[in-house]
């Protein structure tokens, strides 16, 4: 199946500064894709390039096979977009704004009214009668999601949808995203790892305009889990620690109470050498297991800022 979102060598430079460098992205159709990165990594720039709100300095991008630069209208007709801080016409009500947004996609009459009612129900704003300028931030964000869904898009682009929200607002938005799973491709940028952990199927990690990883969540965990081992021996591991530090396959080792936490470069070497070392020192082996890293640890490791 063709990817819902694809980029090839996508670049963006601002006055000599590289904001995005040769981004090659392929987001599977129907997935919930987390676009992770620290502030200033280039996440918003990427999303704005995909929406066509900014022009790429190089490379190409496609939404459902439509080239964003050459067929902007076709691409936009298939996507919904929510910026980090959506700005509405404050004098309109939620229903009025949705009607306005729907008309921009050519919806009319009963089709428009049905869509408006469905979306107001979906985001829990059916009873919000006042003008948008009186809405809380969470309500605005939910209205933002509703307007992004007004055209029943195939691809939903959400830029930091939860970063400015309190825990309740965050939960509401994540619940809404989770409820949309399967029906469309959701691409959301964030620096909140717990959000990705909760709803994403796959992630890309971006730092300083460069993509460092792009994998499914399961694959990312599997790869990085294999690189950390937890070892427990029955007596003082002091001598073992000293021997381990001389081993070339070991990246580093930490002592956590009775356990040793080993970050290894080559898992095969570790698996072969560890039992030998333990046997040589005559230590009783209590536990040796590959351990799963938290997403935060994986993120820091990919960024090269981990242990």
């Amino acid at each position: 199946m063709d990817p819902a979102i694809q980029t090839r060598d996508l670049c963006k430079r601002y006055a000599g500064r590289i904001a995005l460098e040769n981004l090659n992205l392929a987001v599977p159709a129907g997935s919930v894709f987390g676009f992770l990165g620290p502030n200033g990594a280039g996440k918003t720039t990427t999303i704005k390039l995909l929406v066509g709100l900014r022009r790429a300095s190089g490379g190409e991008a496609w939404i459902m096979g439509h080239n964003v630069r050459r067929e902007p209208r076709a691409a936009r007709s298939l996507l919904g977009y929510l910026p980090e801080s959506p700005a509405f016409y404050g004098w309109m009500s939620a229903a009025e704004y949705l009607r306005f947004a729907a008309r921009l996609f050519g919806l009319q009459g009963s089709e428009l009214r049905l869509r408006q009612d469905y979306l107001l129900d979906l985001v829990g704003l059916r009873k919000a009668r006042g003008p948008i300028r009186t809405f809380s931030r969470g309500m605005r964000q939910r209205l933002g999601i509703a307007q992004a869904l007004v055209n029943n898009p195939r691809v939903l682009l959400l830029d930091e949808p939860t970063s400015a929200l309190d825990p309740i607002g965050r939960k509401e938005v994540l619940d809404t995203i989770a409820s949309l799973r399967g029906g469309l491709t959701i691409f959301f940028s964030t620096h909140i790892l717990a959000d990705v952990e909760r709803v994403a199927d796959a992630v890309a990690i971006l730092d300083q305009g460069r993509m460092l990883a792009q994998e499914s969540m399961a694959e990312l965990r599997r790869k990085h889990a294999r690189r950390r081992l937890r070892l427990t021996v029955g007596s003082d591991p002091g001598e073992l620690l000293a021997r381990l530090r001389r081993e070339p396959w070991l990246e580093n080792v930490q002592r956590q109470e009775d356990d040793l936490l080993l970050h290894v470069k080559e898992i095969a070497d570790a698996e072969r050498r560890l039992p030998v070392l333990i046997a040589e020192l005559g230590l009783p082996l209590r536990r040796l297991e590959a351990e799963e890293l938290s997403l935060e640890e994986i993120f820091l490791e990919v960024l090269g800022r981990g242990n």
Partner: protein
Amino acid sequence: MGIRPFLDKEWRESWRSGRLFLLSALFLVLGISTPLMLKFLPQLLPVEWQSILGPLLPSGPAAAVDALFKNLAQVGVLVLVLVVMGTIAEERARGQLELVLSKPVSVAGIVWAKFAVHAFAFLLAVLCAFLPFFAYLQILYSPGVALLPLLVGAGFFVVYGLLVIAFTLFASALFAGQVGAALLSGGFFLALSFLPNLGGDFARLSPAGLLAAARGLALGAGRPGDGLLGIGIAVGGVAVFLCLAVVAMRNHEW
């Protein structure tokens, strides 16, 4: 998508914000106060000054028409610039346009809708100035002025105002803030006002030359052909500045 959703939005926004009536209210005040002031100012002066200054003050329908055009062309147009200058710049600064432009819309539709609603508000305001002005002239002076020539003169003034609206929209599309748009529009407005002072063809062909033609027509002194070339140039300017506004918006990175 075409212009209709934007027209509808602009119309409702103008109505609810009261922007639609702001200019009309000001023009109405100018339309009423101008003939009244000219007629009664001499009587408002202290008695000892009346004999000295009274004969020096302009009076009569011609002076009233002249004063109205001057007031509208200065205060009225300045307020028009202030009303229009934030139309695009403000929506851009707030991020409202970013959300709209993420949809498959026509930038030209956005610009033309804004122009159309501002133009309508301006037309309404001009009528609010000229109709009561005409009525007061009939009451205060006998004879006043003929309605049709006065309305033709008002029509010339409307064309001048449309040019100011189009240029201000262009300035608003060019700058991220209202201040830049206001400065550029103000500069343009001053330049327009200054052009006829250069004399010769500038006086005849410049859009501001329309104002002189409008005054002449309103007083029944001009010929219908007067200012037609100026109208052509102004209408061409409207089209050019609106196209430039569209180009400026398309080239902007959101």
